[in-house]
Each structure stands twice: as C-alpha cells, then as structure tokens.
C-alpha cells in the first residue's frame, strides 16, 4: 500500500530523515513512536506530499508521490491526514467542513455529500452537531470532525499525527475509540502517538524512530516486552516507567 525506500530529507543542514525504508500492507495499522524531534511528523508529511524529499522514493498504491508533480492533488485525495491541531475550517459549519472537499473535488452534489457526511457523523458519534460552528466544539469533538472530514474523501490510507496530544486527558478516549473502530474495519493507517495502551491493542506493527532513523520495526508484543535497542528501552521507561 505504502512503500518507502531509502528516503532522505534535510531541513537546511539538519538531517531529519535518514535512509528510511518502510512497507505498509493493506489493512495494517502502524504506530510510529519515538522521542521528540526524531522526525515522525516529517515522515508523515512527506507521505502526504506536504514536504519535499531529497532522495529515495515514496509510493502509495503503486504511484510515486512527488509534491511537484501534477498528480499530487489527486494522490492527496487518497491519503487522509489528521493533524495534531485539528485544523478545522472555522468559517464553515461542521457539515460544510466535511462536505466541501467531496463537493468541490469529487463533484458530488450537496445532497450526495451530505448523506455521506451524516453517515460519517454517526460513525464519530456527532450526528447532532451537524449545523453548529466548529468553534463551539470541544477539542475531542473537533478532532472527531477532523477525522470525518478526512474520511469523506474515502481515502484508502489515513495518516494521524499525534491526534490526541492537544486534547485534555478526558477527551483522549473518545478520539482513540473512533480510530480503534476504523482499525477494526480494516482501514490502512499510520499513526504517530504516545498512547502506548492504544498501540498495544491496535497496532499491527510498531515503528520506533530516533534521530531520523527507524530503529525498530516489530510487533507490539515484541516491542513492549523485549525491545531490542537501548534507545527504545530508555524511551519506554520514560513514557511508561515514571
């Protein structure tokens, strides 16, 4: 589904992604974790074509992703992205946030798009918020709408960048359970998160990054019981140990 080979990326002189290779099969859920600054966000953004790369290749569904090509807009429609800060469109109501892209980009009529949006609102449990303004929603609700917005384009792949780290603790659960259900439905997903309980339950594989490299790529069982690298052990100790 997603194949990354020998990917390198610099921000000026900072080498943020070093020789990344990764293969994601359909229906897999990958959890990316690692210390701050290790390049997780950057990796996700390159897959969506939001960052250029220096060398290597990224293919999604067999097609090369290149931010400078003409195909990038169509390709992005097939790669959903959920941001840490939600980035809902504040000038639009909830329903318009969800239907804008299908209407403008897929040529759906308003009725078609809204019917589909209502199903999605059901799925994220916010049917009654249909016409409210986004700024009246709680963080957890905003993030659930953001997920619905990404799903509205019916992408085969979803990318999540720390979807719960801007939320108050009591709202983390509602967002994670939506993602959990998506996983059960067989959605292919890449999720950066530090919610280790969620990772253990949902992930098919854990990707541990440090200093721009993939240090471990293993099953959750293996990762949590017997991490191979010292860095992963230290990371787990920091995050679980206290």
């Amino acid at each position, binding site marked *: 589904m997603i194949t990354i080979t020998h990917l390198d990326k610099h921000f000026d002189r900072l080498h943020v992604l070093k020789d990344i290779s990764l293969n994601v099969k359909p229906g897999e859920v990958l959890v990316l974790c690692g210390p701050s600054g290790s390049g997780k966000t950057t990796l996700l953004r390159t897959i969506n074509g939001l960052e250029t790369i220096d060398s290597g290749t990224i293919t999604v569904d067999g097609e090369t992703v290149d931010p400078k090509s003409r195909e990038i807009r169509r390709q992005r429609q097939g790669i959903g992205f959920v941001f840490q800060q939600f*980035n809902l469109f504040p000038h639009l109501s909830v329903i318009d946030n969800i239907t804008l892209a299908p209407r403008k980009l897929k040529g759906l009529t308003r009725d078609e798009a809204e019917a589909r949006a209502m199903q999605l609102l059901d799925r994220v449990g916010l049917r009654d918020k249909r016409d409210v303004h986004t700024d009246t929603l709680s963080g957890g609700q905003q993030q659930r709408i953001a997920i619905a917005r990404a799903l509205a*384009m019916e992408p085969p792949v979803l990318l999540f960048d720390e979807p719960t780290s801007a939320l108050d603790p009591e709202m983390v659960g509602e967002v994670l359970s939506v993602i959990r259900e998506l996983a059960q439905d067989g959605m292919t997903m890449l999720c950066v998160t530090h919610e280790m309980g969620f990772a253990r339950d949902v992930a098919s594989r854990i990707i541990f990054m440090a200093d721009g490299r993939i240090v471990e790529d293993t099953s959750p069982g293996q990762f949590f019981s017997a991490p191979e690298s010292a860095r992963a052990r230290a990371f787990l100790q920091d995050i679980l140990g206290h």
Partner: protein
Amino acid sequence: MIEILQTYGMQLLIGGFPHTPLGGLALTVILAVSGLVLAMPVGLLMAVPLRSRFRPVKALAELIVFYIRSVPLLLHVLWVYFLMPAIIGVSFPPAITMLITLVLFNGAYISKIVVAGIDALPRGQTEAALSLGFGRVQTMRHIILPQALRNMLPSLVSQLSLLIKETALGAAIGATEATQTFLDLADNLPGQAIQVYALLALAYFALCYPLLLIGRRLERCVGKAQKIATEPAS
C-alpha cells in the same frame, strides 16, 4: 445654525441638483461608497503579485504600492487631474477625477490589508486543505480568502470612514462635494461663516463616528473568533 439648516439644508445635502450635477453630502457619500466598492477588486488584484513567489514580480508590486502610499493624496489628485489628460488625452470632471484617485489610492492600501489578512491565518489551514487534495487556487478561494475577508471586515469599515474624509480633498480641484459646498455657502454668509464650518465638521462627525464604533465592535467580534480558531480548546 438651525436657521442655516432650514434655509440651506437641501443645498448642503445635494448641492445645486437638479440644475447642476449632484453635489453636497450626497456626492461625498457616493464618492466614498463607490470608491470603496471599486477599490476592493483593485486591492484583491494587487494582492496577487504582492504574494507572488516570483521575486521580480513581487518587488515590482511592492514598489508600486510603496509609491502610492508615500505620496500625499492631494498630490495624487493633482497628478490625475492635470497629468492624466495630458497622457491619455481625455479629461475628466473633478468628481470622476476624485473617484479614480480614491480607487487607486485605497486599492493600494487594501492590497496590503488583504496580504496581511492572508498571512495572519495559521499555516494549518492551508495544509489541511492541501491534504484533502485542494490545489493552490482552490485552497485560496474556498478556505483562505473567506476567512481573510471576514477578518478584514473591521479594517474595511474603517477604510470607508477614511474614504469619506478623503473626499474632502475634492475641494482642491473644485469637486462640489460636502466641503466645497459648505465653503461656498460660507462665502455667501459672511457673518455666519463660523456656524457653517461647525455644521460641516458636525456632518463629517455624524458620518464617520458611527463607522468608527461599528469598526471597533466588529474588531472585538472578529478578534474573538480568530482567537478560538487559532487556539483550539485543548
């Protein structure tokens, strides 16, 4: 003052109309409103090269806007009044001259407001749109511009009151807007000139002060909305 209003009120309001072209306060308001309406598209158009990623285009646009903003409006008025006819061979009546000048002058200022409004939006808005598959132009049209224009609303209201004040310079080339009309009346009523000037000031106050208050109120609303949009409840 009441007496002056009773006798000359109509003249102050519409000038010598219908015997002469429309003048007085009516002309002031028409010039200001149509000036703003026409300056909006000019400002939006000028914002395009100002945000161009092609250096020379951006530099040229900046230069033009800088030129317009660094020369006194009065001097612009004189340029358009005396030099436009020489250059393009057509001369316009004073009121039209005033309108052309106001549109270009305010267009330059509005273009800067537009650019500032666009740049003030969080980057996440553009990225969210791009990640859904919108192109640059579509992102601008559906996501960025609607928000930028909403945030600009208070500035545009202030812009209207600026335009109302700027029309007074029409008196320099004999456009019979409010100031010119009141000045003419003051000449005809030597003993009561000071009352006429006071009325003139009051008239502008009555037009501009409400706009000032509306602008402030809008600023507060937009400011609040903006805050919520950029700092999501966490």
